[in-house]
């Protein structure tokens, strides 16, 4: 029990003293998660809208596939991305292995089905009266789409928050694709895994606290936006 208490005290010391290895991991985490979130929202939002809004052949199959992708293990994504960007892989020449870009690609793959599936469900659950109301107020297709998205903005925010939570806390992709290189590709989660394996619980707990704080700040900002 003592080591946990000591861990908390050490955590506060590390954060307050501005420990460079801790803060580079924090920055790396923020960089890759923000980048992967922007990419997955950019791709997932329109895809989710199309799947949720329109009826088309094989829609059910697409939904099933999407739901399956929700359960993709991060180590599998890490493995797949590794295979593609390693020197022997088709994208090997791009030199993405053991870079933050490589991690961001993997995390985008992780977040994309989450954003898409939640957006599709949100759009599917739009009140049927909304579309009828918009049609009968004279809205054209462009206005209907824009207004529908605005009406379900909280649902889409929820999709973003859920996906952000997932990429922020994943270890598999960051470890396999990033390689956990100190001051370069080490993220908060890979650092926690490493420090814990070395028996340095205090450092691990410190980084854990940082992770929780990031998640808290993101959610606080979103709930502020929601109130607006």
């Amino acid at each position, binding site marked *: 029990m003592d080591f946990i208490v000591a861990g908390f005290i050490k955590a506060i010391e590390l954060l307050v003293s501005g420990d460079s290895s801790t803060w580079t991991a924090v920055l790396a985490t923020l960089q890759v998660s923000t980048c992967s979130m922007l990419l997955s929202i950019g791709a997932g939002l329109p895809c989710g809208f199309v799947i949720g809004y329109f009826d088309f052949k094989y829609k059910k199959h697409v939904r099933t596939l999407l739901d399956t992708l929700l359960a993709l293990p991060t180590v599998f994504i890490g493995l797949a991305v590794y295979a593609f960007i390693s020197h022997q892989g088709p994208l090997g020449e791009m030199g993405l292995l053991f870079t933050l870009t490589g991690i961001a690609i993997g995390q985008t793959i992780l977040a994309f089905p989450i954003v898409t599936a939640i957006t599709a469900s949100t759009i599917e659950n739009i009140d049927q*009266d*909304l579309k*009828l109301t918009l049609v*009968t*107020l*004279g*809205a054209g297709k462009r*206005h209907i789409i824009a207004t529908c998205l605005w*009406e379900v903005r909280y649902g889409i925010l929820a999709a973003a928050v859920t996906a952000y939570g997932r990429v922020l806390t994943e270890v598999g992709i960051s470890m396999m694709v990033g390689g956990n290189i100190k001051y370069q590709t080490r993220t908060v989660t890979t650092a926690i895994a490493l420090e814990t394996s070395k028996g340095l619980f205090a450092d691990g707990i410190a980084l854990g606290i940082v992770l929780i704080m990031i998640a808290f700040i993101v959610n606080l900002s979103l709930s502020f936006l929601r109130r607006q």
Partner: protein
Amino acid sequence: MTKINLTYHLKNIRHYYGNTKVLDIEDLKIEKGSITGLIGPNGSGKTTLLKLLAFAGRPTAGNILYNGRQEFPFSPTIRSKVTLLTQKPYLLKRTVFENIVYGLKIRKDKEYLETRVKKALSTVGLDYQDFAPRKWHELSGGEAQRVAMAARLILKPEVLLLDEPIASVDAKSAKLIREASLKARDTWGTTLVIASHDLQWLYSISDRQLSLFKGNIFSTGIENIITGPFEKINGESLVKTLGDGQAITLKGPAPKVCTAVIKKDSISIDLKKQAGDSGLNQLSGLLASMLLEKKSGHIMATVSIHDLSFVLRLTPDKISRLNLYPGKKVILRFHSNEVEWI
């Protein structure tokens, strides 16, 4: 040739949901600047008809001519002229002001918005200062209904379609919605089609009433629908026995057909039963209500006979001669031949 003073001309409209036919209208004309009331039980096709009139959907078969021209559903031109207020109006998750100007903004009409919103809100009896900044969830059901009405009125539509506009509002709101509808017609020549279960309110506002039942339209207004089961006797008569022991005998066709329509003009009223004619139905009931039919000056009387309600049209003379008043015991009379089967 469709005359130009018609707003709508519906020809051979059939509409299906899956395999179920929900509308079957051979010919229906709605004049410009008129107020048409739609009456009918739930599931009779009123909302479907209103959606088709709003061009929010396309009939499975048939044509809808608008101002003598066939319009393509969902076309921007038609959408700017016709608007529908649904039974449960959807307010956008914005302020009242933003809800009301939404239709104008998408028409890129952004002049004097504040003045116009003030006017639209005052038409439906809401104060601008109090209501314009409110959010959608800060309104009661009646207020939301009136805000939705204001959002339609501000568009000065050629056609205003109202689906159960007073279903969930108080008497004051119902009165304001009535006044706003009449004002739209009188000021801009708006054509209104209104579906409502509140006959008294509907008769007080509409020029004519159409009755719908199972997708069939009766241009003579509300009619008496008697649903089965019927018992077949003597090969050609069908009998429906009411809970109080009285029986309605009707000349029947094929046994599969189980809904009878007895036109209100085929029914007469008296205070005593008449001897003779065995083909005559004479049913004892209570006069439940009386409504003035604005256009004809006749009175629409409703007579309750056990769990059925019969509507018939009476002249003011007849009412004073028989000294009729709600609650009075009366005899309804109609011949067993005077029936249509649908």
